[in-house]
């Protein structure tokens, strides 16, 4: 139906639709990578950004899209679809949404290809950017990581929506009329997220209840998906200017509004450290025409497991030299304090400090046998009184072990939990509570009491007058 369409216009239109399809796929997949996307505006046209929008090209995604298209263009009855699905770490999967780029017969013969169609396609891409952040799969994709990952699959041909479960919703992103048909971009998304699609799964317990959890761990490790398409995560070398040029180099310029030439493929750095999407063998749920997932099985599922776990616990360091530990404990041991001189049968015992002690320890435990003190005016003072002997005396009988408190991290910081605990578990006693000083002052007070009484009796008149004044 290109009656009236000049060959140049036809050529341009085909090019626009082709690159629109490729950019559509990029926007959708990038929106499901799980990270925020950002590109820079540029006031001077570089001639390399289609539709005047800065949308980076992930080479793998372009490659998959081109493979799916196989040289054809979306046309009437030939839709390009991007299917987004979720796959749990246990292997269960579920389709979340299907984006369809379709063409229908309704033609707009009078529209100007080189200008109006191009600009409207640009607006449609902007709408796609906005809508991809609105469908439920966006939030899920931002939380992907340990428990599940998001996959994409591109196919060409008939639209298949049966995997979306009952009650799926449709949202129309937009339409652009062209002389050869109307380009329509829609999204069908699953609404019933608590429902696992009934495929051949052994597990009957629904897992979705756990997955749709706002408090899923941040992205970390997880096994790579084995089927159902490609993971929506990718990391390539951190370069803004494209490396390889996977795209077609078409340097034709359109007149009146100088349209950009085909952009070079730009390498995207976003995504987790997955190190590249590798096609994996799989059985697509529907007999799709294109089998983008059935490719060389060079990378086995085992290999696909990438540890994306961040360095959570660092390995604990070996305990320090016992001599060093010995020096650390030349302090008074206050009451209520765990004695550091514990023998650990094995250094690997994480709770060595809490291991049952030998009987001989109990002899020295201040809690069991309160230390002798000359006079104990108050029970408080008795309990605060430090043990007479220093800790070092008892330490001769025991091997010093580096005290590693439970749950503490490795001793890489200047002051880690263990060091802190050691330093502050034997605080020096408060001076005011020191027994011999208070005892001494008490004795002095008692001695000086008669003299004070004599003075007060002498001045008794003054005191009486003072009291009268107050009343």
């Amino acid at each position, binding site marked *: 139906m290109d009656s009236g369409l000049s060959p140049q216009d036809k050529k341009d239109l085909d090019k626009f639709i082709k690159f629109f399809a490729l950019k559509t796929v990029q926007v959708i997949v990038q929106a499901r990578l799980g990270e*925020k*996307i*950002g*590109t*820079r*505006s*540029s*006031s*001077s*046209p*570089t*001639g390399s*950004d289609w539709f*005047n*929008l*800065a949308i980076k090209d992930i080479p793998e995604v372009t490659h998959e899209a081109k493979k799916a298209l196989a040289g054809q263009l979306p046309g009437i009855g030939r839709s390009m679809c991007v299917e987004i699905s979720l796959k749990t770490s246990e292997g269960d999967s579920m389709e979340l949404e299907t984006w369809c780029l379709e063409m229908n017969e309704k033609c707009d013969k009078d529209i100007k290809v080189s*200008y109006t169609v191009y600009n*409207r396609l640009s*607006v*449609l891409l*902007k*709408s796609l*950017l*906005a*809508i991809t*952040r*609105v*469908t439920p799969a*966006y*939030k899920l994709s*931002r939380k992907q990581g340990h428990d599940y990952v998001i996959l994409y699959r591109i196919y060409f041909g008939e639209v298949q929506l049966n995997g979306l479960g009952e009650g799926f919703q449709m*949202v*129309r*992103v*937009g*339409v*652009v*009329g062209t002389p050869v048909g109307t380009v329509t971009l829609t999204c069908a998304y699953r609404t019933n997220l608590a429902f696992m699609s009934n495929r051949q799964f052994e597990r009957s317990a629904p897992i979705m209840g756990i997955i749709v959890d706002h408090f899923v761990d941040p992205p970390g490790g997880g096994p790579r998906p084995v089927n159902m398409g490609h993971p929506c995560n990718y990391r390539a070398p951190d370069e803004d200017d494209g490396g390889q040029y996977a795209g077609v180099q078409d340097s034709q310029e359109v*007149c*009146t*509004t*100088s349209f950009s030439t085909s952009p070079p493929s730009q390498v995207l750095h976003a995504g987790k450290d997955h190190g590249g999407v590798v096609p994996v063998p799989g059985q697509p749920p529907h007999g799709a025409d294109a089998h983008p997932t059935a490719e060389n099985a060079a990378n086995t599922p085992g290999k696909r497991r990438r540890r994306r776990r961040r360095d959570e616990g660092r390995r604990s360091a070996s305990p320090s030299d016992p001599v060093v530990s010995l020096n650390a404990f030349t302090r008074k041991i206050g009451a209520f304090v765990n004695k550091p001189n514990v023998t650990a049968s094995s250094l690997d015992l994480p709770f060595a400090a809490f291991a049952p002690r030998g009987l001989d320890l109990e002899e020295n435990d201040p809690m069991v046998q309160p230390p002798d003190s000359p006079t104990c005016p108050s029970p408080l003072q008795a309990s605060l009184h430090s043990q007479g002997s220093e800790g070092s005396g008892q330490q001769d009988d025991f091997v010093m072990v580096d005290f590693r408190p439970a749950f503490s991290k490795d001793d890489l910081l200047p002051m880690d939990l263990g060091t802190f605990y050691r330093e502050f578990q034997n605080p020096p006693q408060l001076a005011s509570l020191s027994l011999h000083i208070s005892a001494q002052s008490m004795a002095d007070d008692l001695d000086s009491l008669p003299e004070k009484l004599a003075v007060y009796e002498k001045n008794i008149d003054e005191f009486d007058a003072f009291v009268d004044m107050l009343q």
Partner: protein
Amino acid sequence: MNCRSEVLEVTVEARQVEEAMLALLHTILLHRSSGKFHYKKEGTYSIGTVGTLDIDCDFIDFTFVRVSSEELDRVIRKAVSEFKDALSSDGMGQISLEFYQKKKSRWPFSDECIPWEVWSIKVNVVNLANEQERQICREKVGEKLGEKVINVVEVINRHEYLPKMPTQSDVDNVFDTSLKDVQPYLYKITYQITDSLGTSVSTTMRRLIKDTLAL
């Protein structure tokens, strides 16, 4: 021409007003901004590239896309901030984003500003009693904003009237060329506050962008 008018209505908590307005205004401006025009000889021009940025909201479960332009973001934030300050903690208000064209008139008449699209966002502010309600509100407002974004996209993709692409001499009558990285259509933001009784006590029409009535 007839001015297209669209109304969006949202009900939010006081602390969500700013982000909700930013989300909607930026979504509209994303669609109504072009790259910078560079006019060349022979009456042709080339268009710069518009970048985009994902913005997560702090008080709403929502992410929106805006044009990658700090200048534009500053202008919009300033307008929204003034609107938010004027809104009381449980009042109603309306912020309007109007796209217009300037039509040069002969002296002594000043230029006319002819709006061709007006977006009005009505805001209803509520107070919530406890944290649980606030959490529910976060999610609900996020969903509502999603619906509004779909509405916006629907309207824009009807591809109704847009000003013709101007010649170089006319570009300032159609586009706001003051920003250095993007070029939105000429727009202005105004707002009105209604007090809690529903009467428009002070219709505060503030002109926040100075293009309109200037000679």
